[in-house]
């Protein structure tokens, strides 16, 4: 595909202030569409913290067209072992049910295996968001599927579609075949199979400027096609809406789809989804330990609205805050809603 990160391209959108400016001006400034704060009618507050989502770094072996992280091989931001230790301290001192490891490709963090070994017994569920191709990239990573199984890691894998052309168009040539190979390896270890306790979920996100269809219908299509064509099984499909930030925002603007997409998100606003948005039970930790309401806010550098801004200073007092929002939040409240765990309603 030859795509580079916004940062490598020195795009104006690599400046997060510019992204926020675009999201607040135009159709949201002239009254055509209501700003998100007006739409929800009051402050959004967190509930009990259940999920600590740790972004282990922006480095990735892929450069996907829609990536909200602007991840890629050129990104050098990596979480240090010291910061990872601070995350472990929070797990020791607070009731954190789920650790959710993301990136970039979290597996590319040099402390990844050490961290999983240390963290596993501290939480009920340890999720690794894997792009799949990293598992077949080279010898360094090819042992990871067995490592995952050994530690009962919950694998959540991106697979934009069950056919080659759409997947490769979004994630790069050859990605689909490598992803299928990695899924077959995981299946052979018991992932996605009944009664193994090895959970394998897939993430679908639309390959273009439209919202996902019904999650259950898509899941049925994925299950049938992957089983018929490749003998692959998995547990759940999460249908995720592309949020209008970073590279997807760049795509929307470049293809003259931005305003129509925002209108679609706003017209599909669902108050029921708002009640369950992930920022109400998740805290996002940036590669440098900074705290955010969600991974998307992290990529817009919108730190939490609280004096405690770093994982090293974490206390349950930070639950008493207002969640920071902007117009990108319409992506989580459109239709059936969207989160890192898929639809919300």
């Amino acid at each position, binding site marked *: 595909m030859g795509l580079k990160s916004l940062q490598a391209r020195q795009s104006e959108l690599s400046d997060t202030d510019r992204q926020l400016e675009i999201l607040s001006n135009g159709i949201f400034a002239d009254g055509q569409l209501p700003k998100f704060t007006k739409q929800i009618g009051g402050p959004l507050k967190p509930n009990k913290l259940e999920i600590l989502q740790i972004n282990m770094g922006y480095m990735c072996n892929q450069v996907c067209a829609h990536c909200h992280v602007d991840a890629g091989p050129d990104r050098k931001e990596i979480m240090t072992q010291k910061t990872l230790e601070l995350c472990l301290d929070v797990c020791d001192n607070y009731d954190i049910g789920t650790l959710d490891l993301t990136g970039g490709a979290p597996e590319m963090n040099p402390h990844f295996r050490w961290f999983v070994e240390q963290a596993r017994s501290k939480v009920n569920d340890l999720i690794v968001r894997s792009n799949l191709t990293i598992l077949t990239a080279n010898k360094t990573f090819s042992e990871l599927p067995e490592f995952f199984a050994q530690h009962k890691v919950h694998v959540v894998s991106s697979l934009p*579609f*069950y*056919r080659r*052309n*759409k997947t490769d168009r979004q994630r790069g040539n050859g990605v689909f075949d490598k992803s299928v190979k990695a899924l077959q390896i995981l299946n052979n270890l018991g992932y996605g199979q009944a009664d193994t306790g090895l959970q394998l979920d897939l993430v679908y996100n*639309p390959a*273009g400027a*439209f*919202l*996902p*269809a*019904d999650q259950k*219908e*898509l899941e049925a*299509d994925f299950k049938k096609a992957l089983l018929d064509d490749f003998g692959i099984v998995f547990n759940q499909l999460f249908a995720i809406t592309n949020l209008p930030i970073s590279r997807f925002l760049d795509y929307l603007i470049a293809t003259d789809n931005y305003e129509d997409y925002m209108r679609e998100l706003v*017209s599909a606003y669902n108050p029921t989804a708002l009640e369950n948005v992930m920022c109400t039970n998740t805290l996002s930790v940036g590669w440098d330990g900074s705290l955010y309401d969600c991974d998307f806010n992290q990529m817009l550098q919108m730190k939490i609205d609280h004096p405690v801004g770093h994982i090293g200073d974490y206390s349950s007092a930070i639950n008493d805050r207002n969640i920071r929002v902007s117009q990108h939040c319409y992506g989580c409240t459109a239709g059936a809603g969207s989160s890192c765990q898929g639809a919300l309603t």
Partner: protein
Amino acid sequence: MEKTYYKPEDLKKFGDITQWNEDLGTKFFDYYNAVFESGALSAREKSLIALAVAHVVQCPYCIDAYTQDGLKRGIEKEEMMEAVHVGAAIKSGAALVHGVQMMNVHDKLSM
């Protein structure tokens, strides 16, 4: 008067039809929504049929709506085009089969 007969933004106002006759409008949309639920045919198959019919009746709103619906359902562009050809084939066939009527009239009247 409007400068064009069709405006893309009017598609989103389809539901407003109910404002001038709530009873009939509601009955229509209840029926419409029930038709497109999964049944003996999947919602995906119904979406492709709707796309083909949209072309046959040349409804720009419907073409827009069911192309987007197909994209959301992961329907491939090759499937969409084949569906359009099915509609086009039936429509052109419907025109052409009237040629038999023409032949009948011609032969009856000709020496």
